[in-house]
């Protein structure tokens, strides 16, 4: 049973679970950016001489759409390496 777990170990374990759950936010940019790339490929197929402009616009839009995935990554990195909840518990 859960008798031998210290509080610090419990907090660290829950931080690790939280970091894993935060990375589920990576699904969104994957789907969205793939959809945008499909539309860009279609546009290049329809007008091959505008390829430079189309690729530049697509890269700009994809970098902005990736932001929410990066938010999840930053939360996961902070939970794993900075361990703020452990610090908050030890200062309690």
């Amino acid at each position, binding site marked *: 049973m859960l008798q031998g777990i210290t509080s610090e170990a419990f907090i660290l374990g829950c931080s690790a679970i939280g970091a894993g759950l935060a990375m589920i936010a990576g699904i969104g940019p994957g789907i969205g950016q793939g959809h945008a790339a499909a539309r860009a490929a279609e546009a290049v197929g329809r007008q091959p001489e505008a390829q430079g402009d189309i690729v530049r616009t697509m890269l700009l839009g994809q*970098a*902005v759409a*990736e*932001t929410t995935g*990066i*938010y999840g*990554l*930053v939360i996961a990195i902070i939970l794993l390496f900075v361990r703020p909840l452990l610090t908050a518990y030890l200062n309690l």
Partner: protein
Amino acid sequence: MKIEIAMKLFGKDILIPDSIVNSFIIVIILSIFAIVVNSKIKKAKLDDKPSGLLNFMEAVVGTINGLVKDTMGLKNMFFAPYITTLILYLAVANLFGLLGFTPPTSDYSVTLSLALITFTLTQIFRFKSLGFLGYFKSFADPAFLTPLNVIGELANPVSLSFRLFGNILSGVIIMGLLYSALGYFAPIITPVLHGYFDVFSGLLQTFIFAMLTMIFISSAME
């Protein structure tokens, strides 16, 4: 290789972390580079074709001037030197990981400072073009959406800084884990990953940061 500075100033211990020391090094390198290019320009004759370093620098300045003209319009060309400085600093800073040092942009304080410069510029130009009362009224466009407008305006520098920080830091962490896991066999797959994380992602994030800065400032001026 980490270079840190730990010194005592006025009786207090000050520690400057390695990413900030790398930022100082980049500023010194870019200043020396600018002095070298300047002395070459002064010695060049106007009628000859430019060669070597001057040719490359003319191509860079011409491209960035074209970018500023397309995004911000012809009457805002006075922004081109600031955008050129931003692009040169960010390109060298993001590519610093190729040399084995920690890139300065993997520290959140550096990216937050750059995003706050953009935020200050945006608010100043919005203030100038709307006047004192119009600036505050522009947030209360539909009156019940005021908190949403304010938060949307504050979210711009936050997302700008986090985008650059997250991209570069994730590259640094993954490369660090790979090097410590593979030891001597690392050079089999790390060059490809360096090419993606440092070269492609670094240059793309530079371009995105500059383009978003220009778009924010030019949209605040209307």
